[in-house]
């Protein structure tokens, strides 16, 4: 148990060091979601006049989106890093040590979580500077951080799964636009009950990303919404469980060591 914990710590430290030594991989996940936040806050301001819109602040409403968009970057970065390890043979080197597979998966996600916490801190600070106050209070901020780490882990594990199946950084990066489609066909820009295009409302309702966004949004805009939080946490836990299981299964195949 001590050895496993030591292995996880070592691989997580390497993952954090690698992440911090790639400025582009830190700046892009922090800055791009904020740019989309700025564009949407300006462009969608009129939405707040719609009857039934949950808040008078479009920034507060849209602030949930950077968290999920930022988590998508986790998929790409985590997966690309592991794919590079496969391509360079570094994974084979690790395979020749007594390293346990689970240590690699958990350790690899260490950098992702570190970056995720940095992203969350910046988004919250920017939101605060723009006048957004959490309806759920300081405890809501803490719950949001826990929720965001869970989402980052889930998406990061999907990246690991893709890397382990394909062994290609390019293949992992090609997933990014596909995930973006899920983001846009969701309730990111408007509440589902105010959508007037029927097929879009159906698609957004079927899209799990909507519930992740609504979980975050509830903490910022509404306060303590048990249903939104239960759905958000439930989906995040399910995606994380499935993604980590798939990644573990793929790692077993990939290592192929006796």
């Amino acid at each position: 148990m001590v050895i496993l914990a030591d292995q996880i710590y070592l691989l997580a430290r390497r993952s954090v060091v690698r992440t911090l030594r790639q400025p582009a991989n830190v700046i892009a996940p922090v800055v791009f979601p904020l740019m989309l936040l700025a564009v949407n806050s300006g462009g969608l301001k009129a939405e707040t006049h719609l009857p039934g819109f949950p808040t008078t602040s479009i920034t507060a409403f849209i602030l949930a989106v950077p968290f999920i968009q930022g988590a998508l970057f986790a998929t790409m970065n985590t997966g690309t890093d592991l794919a590079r390890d496969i391509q360079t043979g570094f994974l084979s080197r690790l395979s020749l040590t007594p390293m346990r597979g689970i240590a690699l998966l958990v350790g690899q996600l260490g950098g992702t979580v570190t970056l995720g916490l940095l992203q969350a801190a910046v988004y919250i600070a920017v939101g605060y500077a723009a006048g957004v106050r959490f309806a759920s209070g300081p405890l809501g901020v803490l719950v949001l951080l826990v929720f965001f780490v869970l989402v980052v882990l889930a998406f990061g594990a999907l990246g690991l799964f893709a890397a382990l199946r394909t062994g290609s950084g390019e293949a992992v990066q090609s997933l990014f636009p596909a995930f973006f489609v899920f983001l846009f066909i969701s309730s990111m820009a408007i509440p589902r009950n105010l959508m007037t295009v029927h097929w879009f409302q159906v698609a957004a309702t079927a899209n799990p990303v909507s519930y992740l966004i609504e979980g975050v949004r509830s903490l910022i805009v509404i306060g303590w919404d048990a249903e939104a939080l239960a759905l958000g946490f439930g989906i995040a836990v399910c995606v994380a469980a499935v993604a980590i299981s798939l990644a573990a299964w793929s790692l077993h195949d990939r290592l192929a060591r006796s």
Partner: protein
Amino acid sequence: MHRLARVSEQHAIEAASLVREFKKGPRAVDHIDLAVATGEIYGFLGPNGAGKSTTVLMLTTLLPPTSGSARVGGFDVVKDGPEVRKTIGAALQEAALDPLLTGREHLRLQASLQALPRHDRGPRSDELLERVGLTEAADRKVRGYSGGMKRRLDLALALVHRPRILFLDEPTTGLDIQSRTALWGEVRRLAKDDGVTVFLTTQYLEEADVLADRVGIIDHGRIVAEGTPAALKAEIGRPTVEVVPADPTEEAHAASILARFGEPVASVRGVAARLRTGQADLAEIVRAFDNEGLAVGQLQLHQPSLDDVFLFKTGRSLEGADDEGEEEGLGGLAMEPA
């Protein structure tokens, strides 16, 4: 004690009828037998795609054999994978390094994952950095290292846990002669001073000739010759003469002249014959070409080399054979097993 007893057995590496097949490729390794003595440097020589790296991957437990068996350090590579991995060190075909970490960070990570005692990790890293001449570059990121430096660090990483058996897969490919010579010196020292058994694959004749106690020549997944370099060359015995006529259309005529002095052998550039009576024939050969009025572009006397052994066994030159094979190595892991 149990482990030491096993490693000190007569053969550090043994394989019996080892086979590896891939669904979408040829039989990469085809019933090979190996017996590498403890403390020996065994050179595994062959062109690209011959099956060298696939063999190494199986012996290092990274690729399960399709059939056959192998024992490394006394442990079965299929049943006792963890024990095999504790016994061996390996530097695979490409230097498997993280460009974002420093040399020292690599060694510390490796030392930790190999479960070296905490107090030993730092000194062992420093010792290895010094041994491979990377002390000054230890705190630089690996992406700034030259090919030779990466190879040396790769070797140091393979040695972190003081393995008794070392696998080196084409360790000097792409290196300049200076780096190559330095690495040869370190491999020799490991075998001689530390008693490490070295299984070294190479496509360089000179490397096998200079470094290996014994050589196995592999082609199309099969071992076609095995022995000490001297014994293999002695098997070929007599020198060969190669003649390149000034006029390429005169090759048949040149071959008929050479046939008087020995049996024809394959030649990449012209015609060649293995001399019946040794190099004393050389003056006679020159006279014969002169008498026939056939202008000679080049005439060379070859003492037997490992390339001649390869040529003799396969009908092809080792250098020419390179073009026929597909690149092998870790990519093999991505192929589906049959």
